[in-house]
């Protein structure tokens, strides 16, 4: 095959093998969305109430939590709407857990696809995050229902919520990308991440608020806690949704907008790092599985 009878330049560029994103963003997006929607549909497939459970389940679960934490155990101090703040924290953290724990196993679970079809590999973790986002949407509806029932009013600052959730998605996606390819190489990433998720749950002001922290170093501890982007997101979401003196904005708690640069850079850093690791590993994922 040394002397081709045709002009090799006319062949165009050689194919590149599998990549993270492919070169067709429409296809990438369609794939991620289809995968996510399929999973979403399958979750309650076959149950009598079907899709209704998607909405009923958070309402019922939150009902239990709401009663326990407002009527039986009182952690709220004097903060109003503590139940709502708690629910919001749980819902947002739930998204993070779902996106990352699902992200860890996603490539292994889709092994069949990855080994048999050339498609943008990144669609797999993105689908997991999208699926988690759909569940978050439904859970947030439940939170709003409880907020209205408890007498909360509509606020202009609700408009902040999409941006706050966007930040959360960036963090979740970053970890999902990072963990998915790491798990292919090192199988004990999964139990380690389980432990980290547990630890993060307590390190993040979810079932307590930063205002309940007292003592000589309270200011510094609060600031340190909010360096965690999850804490910042939850704090800011509570501020936007409920507001009032009980739920100051993240910037106020940290003592200046400048401090927000720390969680912001962690957010961006995780996402970029995750993407770079994923992009480097994507071409060989099919062989390693």
């Amino acid at each position, binding site marked *: 095959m040394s002397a081709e009878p045709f002009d090799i330049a006319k062949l*165009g560029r050689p194919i590149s093998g599998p990549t993270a994103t492919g070169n067709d963003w429409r296809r990438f997006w369609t794939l991620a969305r289809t995968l996510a929607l*399929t999973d979403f549909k399958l979750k309650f497939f076959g149950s009598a109430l079907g899709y209704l459970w998607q909405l009923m389940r958070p309402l019922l679960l939150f009902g239990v939590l709401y009663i326990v934490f407002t009527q039986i155990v009182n952690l709220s101090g004097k903060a109003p709407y503590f139940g709502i703040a708690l629910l919001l924290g749980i819902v947002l953290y739930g998204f993070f857990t779902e996106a990352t724990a699902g992200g860890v196993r996603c490539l292994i679970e889709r092994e*069949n*696809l990855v080994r*048999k079809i050339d498609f943008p590999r990144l669609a797999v973790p993105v689908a997991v995050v999208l699926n988690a986002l759909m569940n978050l949407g439904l859970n947030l509806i439940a939170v709003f229902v409880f907020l209205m029932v408890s007498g909360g009013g509509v606020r202009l600052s609700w408009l902040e919520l999409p941006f706050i959730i966007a930040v959360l998605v960036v963090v979740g996606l970053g970890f999902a990308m990072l963990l998915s390819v790491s798990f292919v190489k090192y199988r004990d990433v999964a139990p380690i991440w389980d432990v980290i998720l547990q630890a993060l749950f307590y390190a993040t002001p979810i079932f307590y608020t930063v205002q309940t922290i007292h003592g000589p170093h309270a200011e510094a501890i609060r600031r340190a806690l909010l360096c965690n982007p999850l804490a910042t997101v939850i704090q800011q979401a509570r501020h936007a949704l409920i507001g009032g003196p009980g739920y100051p904005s993240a910037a106020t708690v940290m003592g200046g907008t400048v401090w927000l640069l720390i969680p912001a850079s962690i957010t961006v850093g995780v996402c970029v790092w995750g993407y770079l690791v994923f992009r480097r590993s994507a071409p060989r994922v099919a*062989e390693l599985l």
Partner: protein
Amino acid sequence: MSTPEPVIPAVFVDGVSKEFILPREQVHTLKERALHPLRRPGHDRLRALRDVSIAIEPGEFFGIVGRNGSGKSTLLKCLAGIYGADKGDIYINGRLSAFIELGVGFNPDLAALDNVMLNATMLGLSPREARKRFDSVIAFAELEEFVDLKIKNYSSGMLVRLAFAVMIQVDAEILLIDEVLAVGDANFQQKCFDEFERIRHDGKTVLLVTHDMNSVRRFCTRAMLLEKGRVVAIGDPEAVGSKYLELNFSHEARAAEAQEAGDAPAGPAQLLPRLDDPQRFGSGEVDIEDAWFEDETGTRTEILKTAFECTFVAEVVFHERIENPRFTLELQNNHRTIVFRASSEYKDPETGAFEAGRRAQLRIFFGNLLGPDRYFATVSVERQGGGWLDRRERLLTTIVTGTIDTGAVVQFPYDLAVHPLADATTLEPAHE
């Protein structure tokens, strides 16, 4: 005079190599890493493809054959873009669709529509395109009555039909197909074959990876044989098929495999067709000089009658001393399916020793049960233990005629009886 514009290949593979690293003991956990930080696990290198080059022109139906582990699936996966090649380049000129496995991404809990959408999206269609094709997919798969059934309740045949239908409905100019022919019931298989014929007529480029030499003979315009990651032969499907058989059955090949001697170019010389005749293979130590059929009266004939005794005769001359050569006759029908094989191996392997210069006559007597059709005879003389001395493919043709043409490949002698049954023996429940 200007030379005609050279055709740009649909698929051009330029010196592609692919190596897999297989760790001897898989280090899968961080703990193992931490406990033995200095231990480097040994690994084997598996050279799945070694410097493979092919140019496939648009409209070719190209067969890729090879034994297990010869690298054919790896090549297909490289072409499909699932694996990246370590060395060399692959150029694809046109929209490509790869079918490595049927029904990838099918979810047992979803109904046909969702699965078709999912599968088609994975294969690269937009949701709108996929929805437009849904009806024709279902019609092709003959599953109109079962559209709403979850596919976990489908029979395996129905599942395969659905998957094949989705695959065939993706319009691509270049199709890569990995052994999906051996699926479904006979009726559906025929439909698949028809579909392959149609694809071929549409002028699409198809690369078919298979073990099945019959489908290579039947569909392919050109074929390639891979062995241990190297291209051993490329060209006429019939010739490549023969080499494949040679590789598969020769003991030499097995012995060579046991040794696996480095990078020495494989393939003994007799694998190549003889220069004077592309349908002739072998070392030349024996010549099959002539061959013919005789009818039940012993007269030489070109027409055989169904249900009569007949004889195949071949005359052979030995140029070297050969002990116990193996004589084989194969009959192929018009579809190139081998319908009959007779060999001294099955009857009497001790055919005797033949000195150089001796001549021999081979006579094979058989009752002709073949249905009316045209048949081709391939004759070969092999060394005991493998290696062709002479093999002449489709050396002669014969027509089989009969008073009745049942349309079947073979016509066994049979008796048929119909007995009326007395009423008392019918299956009525006893009341008394």
